[in-house]
């Protein structure tokens, strides 16, 4: 097992328009990307647990040539609404840092 912050050199979150949030996971090299980016623990259930996201509205895009994975999810409350805490969602990445990943070995 490894935590996301151990296998990524950069992790960021940002609003993508008023209705979506997008998370960029830049893995530390192709080796870590290959080993961890397909982890089932990085699936919609994680976004649901951490951010209350609707799993049906989670999109995931691996970008192999940048050794990164982009995960986007629909906001659960209106941007700037009554219970807003992070308008740009720029601090939401912090809850991902200590998420533990397994390394599914497809060859075995």
């Amino acid at each position: 097992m490894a935590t996301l912050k151990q296998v990524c050199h950069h992790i960021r979150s940002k609003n993508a328009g008023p209705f979506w949030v997008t998370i960029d996971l830049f893995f530390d090299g192709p080796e870590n990307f290959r080993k961890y980016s397909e982890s089932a623990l990085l699936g919609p259930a994680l976004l649901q647990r951490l951010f209350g996201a609707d799993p049906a509205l989670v999109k995931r895009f691996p970008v192999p040539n940048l050794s990164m994975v982009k995960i986007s999810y629909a906001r659960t409350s209106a941007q700037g609404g009554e219970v807003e805490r992070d308008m740009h969602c720029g601090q939401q990445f912090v809850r991902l840092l200590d998420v533990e990943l397994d390394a599914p070995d497809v060859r075995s």
Partner: protein
Amino acid sequence: MIDGPVKILIPTGSLGAGVREDEIRYAIERGIHAIATDAGSTDSGAAYLALGMSKNNRGSVKRDLTLLMKAGAVARIPLIVGSSGQAGGDANVDWTKEIALEVAAELGLKPRIAVIYSEQTKTTLKAKNAAGKIRALPPLGALDDATIDACDHIVAVMGPEPYTEALKAGADIILGGRTTDTAVIACFALLKGAPAGPSWHAAKIAECGGQCAVNRLASAGVIISLDSNGFEVEPASLANRCSPHSVSAHMLYENSNPFELTEPGGVLDVTEARYVAVDDRVVRVTGSAWKPQPYTMKLEGAGRGRYQTLMLIGIQDPDVLSRVDEFHDKMLAALYERTRATIGPAAGDFHISLRMYGWNAVSGDRPPPGTPAPREIGVLFVATADTQEMATQIAKACNPYFFHFPIELDKELPSYAFAFTPADIERGPVYEFKLNHVVEVDDPLELVRTEWIDLRVESRRTVRA
């Protein structure tokens, strides 16, 4: 016609953020054919559209416009501004127009200015919706008249066509309403015959100015250079450089899909794009594709919700800081009880929130057991109610509890640190974007109005009078 590549300076990520005179000079020496920048986005929230107000202060927008209008006049190249005044509603555009006219008068310039509006009336949109021409984008559902009525202002986000029309008609300066960040830049390249894929892709890479460079603070602007096979991108300052990684990574920024970007009239697809270093400062990009689609414009509508009143305290008392979550829960329950006891049903469906800054205010979640106590916290009290008056009445009712709530009932009442008198701050209504829909149009200009201000003609009139 332009000989060789089409070169465009994007001097900043947003008009008013601070263009740099030396970069403009360098770009003109490099032979740019146009200057293009957007002046806003939805990122800062719905208030700027709902209120018709700029996020940037007037002085910084005037400073940037002064430098850019002077450069455009000296180099005899067009200056293109989109999403004027942050939100690009009619009031935002007019605010920017007044500044541009002031600058022109001060500099003695006489440009032809095209002012392009894309704010929509509710009647127009209800008719479009009734005709089945408006479609929801996830996560929102089908549009109804009540949602249209709940908006204070609605804009249709423009593509490049109104801009290319204005350039063809001889505009020296374009001040556009809400436009996609990319269309503001792509319009000039498309007009000069650059291929669509590279035009849109270059515009996406350059839309935040120097953000696509290696050092995001070392330069404000970038220059894109388009030819028949692709484009090159370089920072507008010799002190900065672009790398294949910095350029390709920018395609990810603020974009929910790293490969596709939906625009009016098509989709930019960069799946096959290749990024190659030309030298240590310049990157060449090829393989960008454009897939035409039926023409749609995105709708942005902003409206106000309920009203809020705030109070703020600071706490350093270690007895509280060792039990922040317990303190939060007990105080919140006491504030609800206090409001119900003193205001009763008149308070309506009110809401009180306590944000524990220094503990968990950003996320609102519970820190794990064993988390060390902070040195101090700030507690932000937020009351939400149907009217501003009621939100403030709730804050006033809560005032003595919020400032003196004890963690131990048998000790004397504490006084937490507060900095302002009066202690409550009325912050007005919340503002939200209420639309995430697209409207089909028969013609890209159908929902757009262009007005011309020709200062050459107006000054002749002044002379005659």
